[in-house]
């Protein structure tokens, strides 16, 4: 077992970003934002049912993290995973079709909003048991290591998952076994309605990871450039064989927990204050200051994203339902792998 020092470094973003990459990051955040906004409309129109957990406000995290990954790196996610799925490269159409409960959805309509899966992009699912995906991520990463593959697994979870025993058992095992996992903790400060200060006696979450000899950092999750820089540092170390790392992304959801949540537990002033830190206008401002982008280009990007979302909705509308006769398919495997 390797000795490790722990870090709880504050990372500050460098404003150095190329035009091409800056526009890519902006496009990805806009794709997530507009997709989520359309989901709200479609939920109201009863096209999407069940629980719907929106990622609005947190786009910088998924976007910045995915920018550091190779295509064959794996992602394990939660029930608030639309942003992760889009940023990982799953088509918006199949994601929307999943929410419509259609057969062309990423899970044939069996999973819905909380359970997006895609083997092709190594997206191991939205897991709706809080912390339930964390040991899976350790196992996926361990399997890569045991098979000599140079891959990393990113495991997203909210700060509420740190309350669960599964988190503590899993990060300890990952540390003991040098599993190439990034524990990506999206601290949006509320687990449903439970404020972090009311749920955790120690609210510095990186310290918990440090307690398992896992290097840990705090990163400003509202700044996509800071997310990318901090994550790249961690991913590089993990890929080099340094064992797991933990990053606490300090972020905020602008919307309620789910569409059912009347949001009675947050002070509207607090929500407003975080909205002032919206990562999308912040990046536009940075890119404009650098002379990378003008208003017309932003408008063109918006139009491009709107068209993509329109096409995804049309794809979902056009997709058929899975035949009821298929209900029992995939309880067990149809062919041995």
């Amino acid at each position, binding site marked *: 077992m390797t000795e490790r020092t722990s870090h709880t470094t504050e990372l500050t973003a460098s404003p150095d970003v190329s035009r091409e990459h800056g526009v890519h990051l902006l496009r990805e955040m806009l794709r997530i934002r507009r997709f989520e906004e359309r989901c709200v409309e479609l939920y109201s129109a009863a096209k999407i049912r069940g629980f719907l957990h929106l990622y609005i406000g947190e786009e910088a995290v998924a976007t910045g993290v995915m920018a550091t990954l190779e295509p064959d790196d794996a992602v394990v996610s939660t029930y608030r995973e639309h942003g992760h799925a889009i940023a990982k490269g799953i088509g918006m159409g199949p994601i929307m079709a999943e929410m419509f409960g259609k057969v062309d959805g990423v*899970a044939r309509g069996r999973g819905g909003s909380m359970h997006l899966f895609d083997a092709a992009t190594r997206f191991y699912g939205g897991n709706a048991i809080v912390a339930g995906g964390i040991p899976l991520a350790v196992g996926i990463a361990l399997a890569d290591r045991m098979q000599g593959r140079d891959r990393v697994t990113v495991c997203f979870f909210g700060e509420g998952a740190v309350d669960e025993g599964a988190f503590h058992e899993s990060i300890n095992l990952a540390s003991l076994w040098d599993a190439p996992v990034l524990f990506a903790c999206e601290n949006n400060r509320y687990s449903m309605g439970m404020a972090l200060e009311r749920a955790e006696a120690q609210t510095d979450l990186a310290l918990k990871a440090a307690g398992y000899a896992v290097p840990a950092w705090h990163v400003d999750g509202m700044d996509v450039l800071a997310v990318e820089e901090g994550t790249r540092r961690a991913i590089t170390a993990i890929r080099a064989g340094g064992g797991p790392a933990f990053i606490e992304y300090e972020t905020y959801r602008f919307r309620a927990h789910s569409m059912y949540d009347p949001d009675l537990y947050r002070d509207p002033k607090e929500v407003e204050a975080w909205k002032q830190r919206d990562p999308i206008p912040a990046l536009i401002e940075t890119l404009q200051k650098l002379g990378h982008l003008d208003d017309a280009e932003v408008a063109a990007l918006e139009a491009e994203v709107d068209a993509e979302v329109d096409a995804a909705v049309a794809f979902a509308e056009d997709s058929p339902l899975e035949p009821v006769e298929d209900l029992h398919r995939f309880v067990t495997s149809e062919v041995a792998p």
Partner: protein
Amino acid sequence: MSTTTPAPTTVTLTLREALKQSLRDALHRDERVFLMGEDIGAYGGCFAVTMGLLDEFGPERIRDTPLSEVAIVGTAIGAAMNGMRPIAEIMTCNFSLLALDQVINNAATLLHMSGGQFNVPVVIRTTAGAGKQLAAQHSHSFEPIFAHIPGIRVLSIATHEDARAVLWQALEDPDPVVLFEYPRIMTMEAEVPVEPTPVDLDSAAIRRAGSDVTLITYGAIQHTVLEAAAALAEDGIDAEVIDLRSLRPLDDATVLGSVARTHRAVVIEEPWRTLGVGAEVAARVTEQAFYDLDAPVARIGSAEVPMPYAKHLEDAAQPQVPAVVAAVHRVMHRG
């Protein structure tokens, strides 16, 4: 010219050794196979099944874990989803409850919920049953809890021949397998073929052929049932004994075929009787073979109490030979 003795074709093994041989075969056959669990390596296994494997296969493949049942099972599931063939060991099924979330919400669910994209070829070994005075947190039998769940295969292994073959066969299943073993009978000896012989794990096994009554059972208690069958033979009752072996899926055909011949059935299991495997079997027999029956199906299970420590109470809580004999006499209208 010298004469040579032909190599023996059978060998006498304890059940523990048969299981270990099966694990060893699995590790030799497929380099993706590895073991993980509490004290399976340096200690040699809580019930000594894995004794010696660490030296033979090394710490990469025989992985001692911390006391973390959720992480053991969840990590094994993740590794299975990504190309490995892990065998996770949970010392007793009482402890398996800590990992039940991973078994039900992930292992059993992911293939269906992902629309067929992610199968989970994991094997989870655990133990069940009383008889060693280990009291209520080490002695229970939770086979029915697992057998309730679609998406996993549940096997109950209590004979040497099955034990010798079970692991490499279970590992060929692309889906999760939960394997119940029985500490009470680990030191029982029997003769098995030197070369592992495939067994039909999908089917129930007729352990004793008979014509008067069908005794349906599984797990370690089948050895008690076989004793009861021998006692019944002395009374002139010829009992057939069926070891269900696979608890999910259940092999209805073997059970119904037997009942069609004997017209009487008693189900004996070690878990509590209420809502157990026996209840399911009795319901299936009644649904599908009602007109074959000459008597209602009888059921025997453990007393519905947490398993006590004291020997006389532990014995009283478990199905014993006289209870089986008495139940058979009742269905034979001799009680």
